[in-house]
């Protein structure tokens, strides 16, 4: 049977296609029996030469394998470098636009919270944790109030807000720039101006669902409400420190 000899290292006994059904009737499905018998060359017969060679790392770098090793390293180096170059260029092009846009966004948020012309940053202050920046809201040079950039943890993770506080320490407005609250639960607190406007007029310390400066959170979104309240309190403490 020509086909049978052509199949090299075929160790299956009498498994040529035309084999009598005898071979098959024993009921042992050929696949099952086969996987047991190892087909690949047996491992213990590893000759000594291969072990000596594998050991020397330096031998590898200078030995016959050199072009292969070199080719691999250079290709990956080339691809990564080209990728980095491309990325760097795109980054430089888009960097100013992104910065301008984020700047624009925070300015818009601040305007919503406290009407003023510009918001120079106040430097050199020990800010309570969570408050990332403190801006003075000036109207033609006269400070009208302060605006704080605050970040705190809500339900889904970090969120960053902007809190406006007037000169006598009352909240003038709260707006959320970035959040990762779940839709329809957390967003009911974070994205609805109606809920956030409940903060207006409150003084520190703002307490959730109780106390004189009371902020009623949204049922079912306790974590988000807590997160926002904590941020507002941090802003108020920061501004009070500046006012006093």
């Amino acid at each position, binding site marked *: 049977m020509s086909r049978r000899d052509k199949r090299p290292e075929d160790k299956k006994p009498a498994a040529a296609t035309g084999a009598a059904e005898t071979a098959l009737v024993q009921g042992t499905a050929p696949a099952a029996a086969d996987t047991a018998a190892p087909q690949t060359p047996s491992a213990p017969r590893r000759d000594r030469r291969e072990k000596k060679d594998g050991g020397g790392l330096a031998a590898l770098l200078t030995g016959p394998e050199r072009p292969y090793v070199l080719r691999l390293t250079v*290709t990956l180096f080339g*691809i*990564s470098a080209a990728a980095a170059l*491309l990325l760097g260029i*795109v980054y430089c092009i888009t960097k100013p636009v*992104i910065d301008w*846009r984020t700047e624009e966004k925070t300015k818009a948020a601040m305007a919503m919270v406290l009407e003023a012309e510009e918001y120079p940053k106040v430097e050199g202050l020990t800010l309570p944790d969570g408050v990332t920046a403190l801006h003075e809201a000036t109207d033609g040079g006269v400070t009208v109030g302060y605006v704080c950039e605050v970040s705190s943890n809500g339900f889904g993770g970090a969120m960053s807000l902007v809190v406006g506080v007037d000169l006598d320490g009352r909240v003038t407005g709260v707006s959320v720039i970035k959040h990762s609250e779940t*839709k329809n639960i957390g967003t009911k607190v974070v994205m609805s101006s109606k809920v956030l406007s409940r903060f207006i007029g409150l003084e520190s310390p703002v307490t959730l669902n109780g106390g004189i400066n009371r902020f009623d959170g949204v049922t079912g979104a306790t974590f988000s409400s807590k997160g926002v309240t904590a941020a507002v309190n941090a802003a108020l403490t920061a501004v009070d420190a500046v006012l006093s």
Partner: protein
Amino acid sequence: MNVGKQIKEGLWSQNPVLVQLLGMCSTLAITTSFSNGLGMGVSVTIILTLSNVIISLLRKIIPDKIRIAAYIVVIATFVTMVDLLLQAYLPDIAESLGVFIPLIVVNCVILARAEAFASKNRVLPAAIDGLCQGLGYTLVLLVMSVIREFLGNGTFGAGLLNGGEGYKVFSSDYSALMMVMPVGGFLTLGVLIALMQWVQGRSAGKGGK
């Protein structure tokens, strides 16, 4: 290299999500609103086509041992470029897609197509394959986002149509919030694949013996 076959394959018989079950991380997570689904679908299609082209160009140069590492670097570069461009020029889409843009890099669709197809064919078929698979992927994403958004939010076309709010079909108090959460993703995709197998079963049944 007939385009018709590739298109049919990409959209139906070899649909990356429904048949090969690739790219499911983003499919399940993103499809909560129409604009998300569309934004993700389009960006994946662009990246898939571009990376398929580059990878089929480089296929002779890249040795086998660092095949995966090289492909991943190419894909990651395109993803970061798209990410930066989106943040610069289309901020609202970048905002809603959030953490899922960098995860397009590990989106199995792209690497699988690169490994299975692009590294074995010339540039043009690879590009067409990228486009078809991308379209198939976007189609599934859109179908899923419509279903999930409708059931979970009571609106249609949020983020895009009528100023981002979408048309309110029924007020969101009666919406099944579960559909917007991970659970809904699994269920919708499961039912979709079952529907597809049912259709294939019937057509095979009719066309079969």
